[in-house]
């Protein structure tokens, strides 16, 4: 069902955990229909210097969470907002069609964390 890359991220996900005093936190998903993703970001000079995730969900959900932290870490906020679900699917070397929605959830989580950061800044 899953590519080797997805399974690798599922078995050893990158950047799992919380960030105490995070600059932005995004929580997305709906437990009743499946996955819940929580993304924490630490921002310095407009760059995402640290990013961590917590996810309750299937292998695709965990893998997309993991890969989006890889994609977003070190990027500026502007660059991070340009990350698309296709970037995620490509990095993971493909997702089954029925699982592509997990990549959308990861994008939503990152954007929610950034929005939270931007609102806190005001």
């Amino acid at each position, binding site marked *: 069902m899953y590519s080797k890359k997805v399974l690798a991220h599922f078995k050893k996900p990158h950047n799992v955990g919380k960030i105490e005093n995070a600059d932005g936190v995004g929580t997305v998903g709906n437990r*009743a*229909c*499946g996955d819940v*993703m929580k993304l924490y970001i630490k921002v310095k000079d407009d760059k995402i210097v640290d990013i961590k995730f917590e*996810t309750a969900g*299937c*292998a695709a*959900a*965990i893998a997309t969470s993991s890969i989006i932290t890889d994609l977003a870490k070190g990027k500026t906020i502007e660059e991070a907002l340009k990350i698309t679900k296709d970037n995620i699917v490509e990095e993971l070397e493909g997702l089954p069609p*029925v699982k592509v929605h997990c990549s959308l959830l990861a994008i939503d989580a990152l954007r929610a964390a950034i929005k939270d950061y931007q609102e806190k800044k005001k």
Partner: protein
Amino acid sequence: MRVYLDNAATTRAAPEVVEAMQPFFTEKYGNASSIHSFGEEAKDALENARQLIANYINAEPEQIVFTSGGTESDNLAIKGAAYALKNKGKHIITSKFEHPAVLECCQALEKEGFEVTYLNVSKDGFVNAEELKKAIRDDTILVTIMHANNEIGTIQDIDKIGKTCSEKEVVFHTDAVQSLGKIPLDVKEVNVDFVSFSAHKIHGPKGIGALFVRNKKQLQPLFHGGAQEFGLRPGTENVSGAVGFAKAVDMLSEIDVKRMTELRDYLIEKLLEIPEACLNGARENRLCNNVNVSFSHIEGESVLLGLDDKGVAVSTGSACTSKKLEPSHVLLALGIKPEEAHGSIRLSLSKYTTKEEIDYVINAAKEVVENLRKISPLGK
């Protein structure tokens, strides 16, 4: 270690079954309907198989119709009876947690103008016989309630349901695909009109099953063609399959049931030691090999794949593994919340399962659940 605990999905064929089937591929390969000696020897084997299976449930051999498996048997019973009896009425009663082979048949019949009542089940996983009785109307022609549920293993009181149906003169079908060999069935004791069986759940080959038909007049065939299987199921007979099926039935044993029960009990006890784990479906009146547990705050597919990585095969009721992204209809029918249905896995033993394997699975499960909970934002 590789441990297979998905026997409710399918089982390995017993070596003795494969051995019994062997000659019917390359030596005794005649068409059982041919009247020459090649045909006759195939026919003999077919009829011996039929007799053995009939004996096991105390039926007459002419009451056993071979099919391609449980799904076909369900289709033949439900649609076949509905079409045969439609002049008497067009109301059918079933339950919300039947196998999709039953539910989809009912839904197909609804599109053809039949009316179906889907009975609720209790949170423990039982159909209420009183509610069923109340649901029977003058135009009810068929009741179909499974003997044992494939996901949570709960066993229905088909004795009582059979009596009710008999009193009300309604035909009663039961899907016994999961229960054959695990729960005794005597068709002279229980008033049941049609019973579905499948070989690959009891260490027989895939692609063969049977339907017990008490009275052929209550059934219309779905296939048209030759005259095989009393005209109820045309098609060149699957002799090797029937022989394998019969061998599997012949190997069924109470001792295996007892051993599976003990191992199942031990597995349940140990899995429930994991914090925030709960058993789905009643503890009692449950199939000897079925365990279904929910773990809070994590998701079933990831538990399944985590266990798979450790060599353990199980299944899950999580929405993430269904193509419609909906959690198991069985768990939902019990009133279990979607988020709990999500974190559920089903483990099903076989007669080959050892204590060593169960101990391995228990440790693997503890580790997998702990790791996934570390990754989860919930419950913290």
